[in-house]
């Protein structure tokens, strides 16, 4: 589905992504883990077109999408959410969702004035869909609240909701569970599985919660210092020496050696 080949992203002398190569299978829920500063979010940003890579190639279903702007990737079915929830703060939660589907009739200046009826029909359909999504996410009561005023966890739900407003092919979730309570996290997990099975979304999930990763993701990719360290099931990753070293440093091994 998505192939990343030898991707580099440098900020001055700092190599945030330093030659990452990985492949994401169609229909999978791939977990992306790694210690803080491993380059996970930068990798997301480069794939999603927010940042242009220093070098390297990203392809989607064989098509080169390196450096395409985000709105074009959106129309190809590539969506992402943010680690720190983003929202249109001056609009209601429902309006936030209704913003998402691109190419609405009302976006054309001419039709704004002369296609009122068609726009109204489309808006009605979108509104119904938005309400459906809100209900699915159990936040119907927030429909008319300003999105800037709801809680952090609820904004996270809204982020996920956004990806449900269109038929996405692949969705990148950046710490969708951060700052969200257990019950809500399970709701989000259920939603992800359902979208994956019923609608065939491919997911890539950055997450620090290993239970969450373990429940959803296969395979899991571990990154450190801008490179891909290992790929496999969560148990394989957990047993990987290099991964343990990246997370805990070499201290533990030395301690083992001392005890032995």
């Amino acid at each position, binding site marked *: 589905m998505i192939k990343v080949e030898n991707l580099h992203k440098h900020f001055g002398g700092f190599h945030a992504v330093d030659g990452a190569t990985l492949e994401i299978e169609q229909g999978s829920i791939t977990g992306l883990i790694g210690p803080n500063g491993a380059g996970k979010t930068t990798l997301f940003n480069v794939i*999603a077109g*927010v940042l242009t890579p220093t070098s390297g190639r990203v392809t989607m279903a064989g098509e080169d999408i390196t450096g395409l*702007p*985000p*709105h074009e990737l*959106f*129309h190809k079915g590539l*969506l*992402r959410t*943010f680690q720190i929830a*983003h*929202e*249109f*703060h*001056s*609009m209601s939660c429902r*309006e936030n969702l209704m*913003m*998402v*589907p*691109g*190419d*609405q*009739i*009302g*976006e*054309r*200046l001419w039709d*704004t004035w002369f296609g009122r009826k068609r*726009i109204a029909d489309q*808006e009605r359909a979108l509104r119904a869909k938005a309400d459906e999504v809100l209900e699915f996410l159990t936040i119907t009561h927030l429909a008319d609240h300003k999105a800037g005023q709801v809680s952090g966890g609820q904004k996270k739900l809204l982020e996920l909701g*956004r990806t449900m407003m*269109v038929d996405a092919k692949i969705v990148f979730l950046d710490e969708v569970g951060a700052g969200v309570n257990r019950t809500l996290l399970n709701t989000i997990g259920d939603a992800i599985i359902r979208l994956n099975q019923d609608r065939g979304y491919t997911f890539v999930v950055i997450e620090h919660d290993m239970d969450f990763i373990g429940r959803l993701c296969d395979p899991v990719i571990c990154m450190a210092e801008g490179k891909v360290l290992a790929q496999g099931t969560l148990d394989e990753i957990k047993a990987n020496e290099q991964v343990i070293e990246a997370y805990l440093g070499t201290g533990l091994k030395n301690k083992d050696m001392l005890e032995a």
Partner: protein
Amino acid sequence: MEFLNGFVALSNFVLVPAIAYGSQLALGALGVTLIYGILRFSNFAHGDTMAFGAMVTVLVTWAMQSIGISFGPLPTALLALPFGIAGAVLMVLMTDKMVYKFYREKKSKPVILVIVSMGVMFMMNGIVRVIIGPNEQQFRDGERFLIKAREFKNMTGLDEGLAIKSTQAITVVTAAIAVALLFWFLNKTRTGKSMRAYSDNEDLALLSGINPERVVAVTWIIVAALATIAGVLYGLDKSFKPFTYFQLLLPIFASAIVGGLGNPLGAIAGGFVVAFSEVMITYAWKKVLGYWLPDTLEPSGLVQLLSTDYKFAVSFMILIVVLLFRPTGLFKGKAY
């Protein structure tokens, strides 16, 4: 009677002119605030965009007058206005393509765009002067007054007259229509919502599939229309002279900042705050106070706080006070 006379004098010299001037400033400030909210820089070329749009309108008005087209009692300039808007739209879209786009793609900092807009300002300034010359131009026709001072006196039997120039009435009506359309557009249409979304959160707007180039183009079109309307109304009300539009930049920015940069409602409120302060502080209150105060307290001086020569100082003072005590403006703007 005394009170009424005082009130009529106040309306004649303060309220009516300030409302007309406030509408013009509000339209100008709306343009500045939209650019700030969506393109994220202070557009110093705005005054000269107004001058350019007004200039095209003046030229078309002259052409219409020379072939005998008129708009009855209304000024011919209103008929020419759509052409002026079209001219200004073409101009700003061209500048955007040729100048701003380059910096936008490089993701330049706002301060660089501000300097770039100053360059555009000088360019447009020059273009307008080359085409129409630096002098004052006359393009007003149609009925001069809606109510004449003498008629008002005869009608009411008061000593004081109230004159309402037709241009003042046209200014207020046109501004009201333009603002109503703008707010309907921003709040109710999908394009307007895309603009608000882009202003709220650019990254998210892009990742929601909103085409930034389209949002930017629509913004420029709206801004050019607002600027031309403001420029033509100001020119009709006072007179058309390229340099005055450059000077207007200060009260316009003061209005936008007083209201809160990036907030359209604030721009309108700010326009009226600045206009009323300016007119009231430079008005000689002797006449009105003469009616309102008991004879023993009648002022002997002019009771003028500031000479009209210093009217721009008022905008400066307002700017300083607002930036010191409430930098986000009356309504919460985007500049923190």
